[in-house]
């Protein structure tokens, strides 16, 4: 059994953080599956600290205006638009 217990409340909390509604059956199924999966992940406790690859470098390019999608193309897949903008629900 995992030392990070997962119950229905925990699943609902994570679903809220992830912005995914779940129905009751999903919450129950996930609670039991997550317990198994997280118990399996707990074996990562045995992994020693390992020095990470240090030779990574940033790849930069000049910040220049380049050809890009037109406003019309960018909006083409949106379910709703208004006056050339995406239309969404109220933010608060």
């Amino acid at each position, binding site marked *: 059994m995992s030392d*990070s217990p997962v119950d229905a409340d925990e*699943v609902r909390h*994570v*679903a*809220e*953080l*992830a*912005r*995914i*509604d*779940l*129905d*009751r*059956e*999903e919450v129950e*199924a*996930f609670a039991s*599956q*997550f317990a*198994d*999966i*997280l118990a*399996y*992940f707990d*074996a*990562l*406790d*045995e*992994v*020693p*600290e*390992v*020095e*990470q*690859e240090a030779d990574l470098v940033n*790849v930069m*390019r000049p910040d220049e205006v380049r050809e890009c*999608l037109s406003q019309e*193309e*960018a909006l*083409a*897949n*949106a*379910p*709703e638009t208004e006056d050339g903008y*995406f*239309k*969404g*629900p*109220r*933010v*608060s």
Partner: protein
Amino acid sequence: MAELNAFITEETVESDADGPLSGKTIAVKDNISTEGLRTTCGSAMLEEYVPPYDATVVTRLKESGATIVGKTNMDEFGMGGTTETSAYGPTKNPVDHSRVPGGSSGGSAAAVAAGDADLALGTDTGGSVRNPAAFCGVVGIKPTYGLVSRYGLVAYANSLEQIGPLAPTVREAAELLDVIAGPDDSDSTTREEGADSNYAAAADGDVDGLTVGVVTDLVEGADDRVVEVFEDAVADLESEGATVREVSLDSLEHAVQAYYVIAMSEASSNLARYDGVRYGVSASSASGGSEDGRSESSGVSGGFEGNWNDSFARSREAGFGPEVKRRVLLGTYALSAGYHEKYYKKAQDARAWIKRDFDEALSEADVLASPTMPVLPPKLGESLSDPLQLYLIDANTVPVNLANLPAISVPAGEADGLPVGLQLVGSKFGEAEIVRAASAAES
């Protein structure tokens, strides 16, 4: 074609360019953007999504003269190993219609195996090219991270995934890799290696003097029938002049755990873009909807009268299937306060350890060998009920993605009439060596 359900969208895009793939037909996995051609990622979320631009690999296919014949079925957003999590129904294995083709690039492998396309592109995040190649009896290559541009690939786990070729033979897979490999200004993780590649020339079958390291950790857990075919394939390489030795990598015990923590964490971030506003299923237009009927109460398109978070959450409930929800939730959990150190940080340590172990093993051997999949292709419907068991069949493929290395799956023979794949892993940008070794192993 329809019999196998290998394609989500069948549409022909001709190219009038004269190039190395002129006259060849190619199937493209449905998470690779094709301008003007629907790209669903196997998800209901993107059922109507039509990309406004081509992925770099698609541009290169068109320039090479290839004719695209359609977009292939896949596990939703690449999350699965059987193509059964697709919102468009499972693909059947052409070798045995009662079995899965593997995944997540199951449609691509099935299309090539059935002859519906000469070649195909898949994507490999934790084995998604090699797994279906093995299960369908074709060749699949997962390139070194950075060899092939990911521009226009719909992201699942950026640090792990590469686009790779599927083909009936090693030489044809290498020819397709030559077309798509090389640097791209639109993907800053691409490298110069591969710019003027000629991997196809390496398919000469000459393994005289090559050292093959058998990764014992990845053989021990496999089905006996798979091991028997694998051992015969290795013996063949030895008889053709290769030196065979055994290697063991202690870190591999933690590969599946580390892989899933990292892949799910990256997925939880990447899939945050599906809010039902810029593309995808809006809360009100969602077909299916929530089973308790909450979505029906949102009568206004986009849910404008509600608030952003509620609308967002309803859109995602309706648009994502169970495996995608599971991974996004577990990834959110692994990154959340209090668990980040325990899961994500430890998974990164395991990843660094696995890279180091592979470097050591590859200093003693030119290529490393194992069965591609530890099992024979499962029956349709057999694997979905237990997600953890499904994750465990990725044991032999995920280490390669964690280590950023190239690997190929080549048909090694059959057991009980079903294909078995031999996996050969090479050093970073050592595609020529794995192509050479695989061409010798080809029956």
